């Protein structure tokens, strides 16, 4: 039902924030996001993903961040602490668990601040009850999820299964492929999440270690430019600071017949959260250049994926190209909203659609299957999990096997 949204000007609506052009206490200039991303010059830096998170937050005019250690996000959370010590944030502390941290984030957001936090794996699951509460309460908190294994036995290794738990939380879910994506998504994520018509929490997800602990080249925006601060009085729900009406305000009350109102209010409330996700399409498409990226989708074979699996797919396409096998690519950037129309359109001529994933559930393949026709075109895989890497050679093997081309065994690690 969702139409593909295009922004006519290729830009997000310009900020009308009163602080535009003035400087913050660190001497950074509050800058319209269009100017920051489409006009300002960028500098290449060689950084780990964790450092990239710090660099993004340094420019994000974040009010408060709350931390709790869990591998692989600990480094990023600690680096944000350093930013606090340097005066870039108003407040920062370590909470007692992810459940508490996400509630503390909620408190700060209820109080009208821009809030950022990070978590991963079991932390995401422990925090889970809060994510739906954030969405229902329309709190535009950003959590960076550096995904890792969540299942027993314990694994701290990369695995994207946790994203499937977040699918129906009501949050915006963006999936970064690289450190560059991570940088851009964090900054742009605040802008989209805080639009008055969206105003929802956002999880900017990346594959733990593959992005957080890898040193890669990232183009940074100028250090002396920062986002305009959050304006709590543009919120679609009253800020809880006793500074705005109505005075008699409960966020967010039981909405059920036992307190004398119809269930349809609750249903409408849930519809409204989903509607807000839909509204984010327009802003997101303008800021991150569409919800998907497409390369050579006129080819018979396509790799369609998100996150690090896209990178592995790109390498596989190179290897296949050397052997004369031509494969196209669709990179999905936003999981919620899911780019239904975009994906349907991009894969309409494909005969085989491969969906490599770093999890055993194959949730992305399932999402894709649910929106395209002739969904037996979708080959769910290759899938790895629990920290296993997904060598491009394995994707090559999968595709060749499917095409009936003889392949050497990659099992046994070549010994």
């Amino acid at each position, binding site marked *: 039902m969702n139409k593909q949204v295009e922004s006519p000007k290729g830009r997000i609506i310009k900020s009308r924030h009163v602080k535009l052009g003035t400087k913050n206490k660190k001497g950074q200039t509050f800058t319209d996001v269009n100017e920051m991303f489409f006009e300002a010059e960028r500098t290449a830096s060689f950084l780990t993903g964790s450092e990239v998170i710090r660099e993004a937050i340094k420019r994000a005019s974040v009010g408060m961040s709350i931390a709790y250690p869990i591998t692989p996000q600990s480094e990023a959370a600690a680096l944000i602490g350093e930013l606090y010590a340097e005066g870039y944030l108003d407040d920062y502390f370590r909470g007692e668990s992810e459940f508490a941290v996400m509630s503390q984030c909620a408190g700060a957001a209820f109080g009208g601040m821009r809030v950022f936090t990070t978590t991963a794996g079991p932390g995401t699951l422990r925090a889970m009850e809060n994510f739906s509460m954030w969405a229902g309460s*329309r709190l535009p908190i950003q959590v960076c999820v550096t995904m890792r294994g969540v299942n027993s036995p314990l694994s701290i290794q990369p695995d994207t299964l946790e994203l499937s738990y977040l699918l129906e939380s009501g949050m915006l879910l963006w999936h970064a492929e690289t450190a560059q994506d991570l940088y851009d998504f964090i900054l742009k994520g605040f802008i989209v999440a805080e639009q*008055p018509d969206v105003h929802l929490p956002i999880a900017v997800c990346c594959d733990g270690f593959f992005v957080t602990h890898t040193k890669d080249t990232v183009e940074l925006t100028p250090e002396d430019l920062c986002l305009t601060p959050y304006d709590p009085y543009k919120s679609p729900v009253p800020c809880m600071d006793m500074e705005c*009406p109505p005075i008699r305000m409960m966020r967010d009350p039981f*909405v059920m017949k036992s307190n004398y109102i119809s269930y349809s209010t609750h249903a409408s409330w849930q*519809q409204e959260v989903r509607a807000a996700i839909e509204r984010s399409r327009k802003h997101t498409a303008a800021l991150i250049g569409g919800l998907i990226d497409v390369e050579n989708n006129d080819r018979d074979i396509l790799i369609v994926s998100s996150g690090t699996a896209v990178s592995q797919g790109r390498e596989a396409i190179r290897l296949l190209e050397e052997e004369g096998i031509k494969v196209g690519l669709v990179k999905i950037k936003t999981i919620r909203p899911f780019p239904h129309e975009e994906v349907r359109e991009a894969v309409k001529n494909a005969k085989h659609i491969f969906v490599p994933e770093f999890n055993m559930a194959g949730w992305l393949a399932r999402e894709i299957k649910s929106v395209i026709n002739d969904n037996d075109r979708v080959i769910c895989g290759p899938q790895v999990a629990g920290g296993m890497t997904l060598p491009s050679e394995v994707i090559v093997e999968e595709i060749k096997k499917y095409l009936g081309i003889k392949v050497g065994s990659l099992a046994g690690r070549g010994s």
Partner: protein
Amino acid sequence: MSQYQVKAGPEAFLAPAAASMGIVLPDPGEAHIEGRIVPEEEAYEYAARKFLEAKVPTIFPGPLVLWKWNENAAAKAAAIRKLAEAIPARLIPMADYRPKYPKIEPAVEINPNHPNLTIWYNKIDVCIFVGVHCHQANLALKIIRGGTDCYTMAMCAQAGHEDACLSFRDATVEKIQKLQEAVEKLKKQGVKSQAIPFEQFKTACTGQVA
């Protein structure tokens, strides 16, 4: 393009959110009429005509314009009053958003949790929301579209409401005045208000006084 139109109801047991049916909000300088993006100017005239054709045109001012929490709010309240007089339309406040105990008085208030009660009770056929927080306005608009035949409009200070049959965005005092001018212009052209004669109720600390 979406084929969906945001029409007056009653639409369904649970009407869908217009955004989920592919309706997109207007950009600055634009408005929407039933989901169709139009220049703002067109919407003023359309809204004015809707008001004048209505039997029970009603304005629902919300907390953001009922409380004098800043000077702008006071100015908007003044403009809303004038608009109501120009049409003429009833004013029924949405004083807050709480689940009110034990019940609301549908003749003199509207509540976002069951706005249909007020629509039904007063037989309101055209209404406009102004000064209501967007989330609460959207709840009310969906419920109204679901269960009543009321034509809904919104004068939104932010990005607008696709759940209304007609919506303005970035509302200011001037925009409220422009709507009033559009009403007056139509009247000058000979369009007569079809409103059933009514007396605006008045309240005081002690209760309803008129």
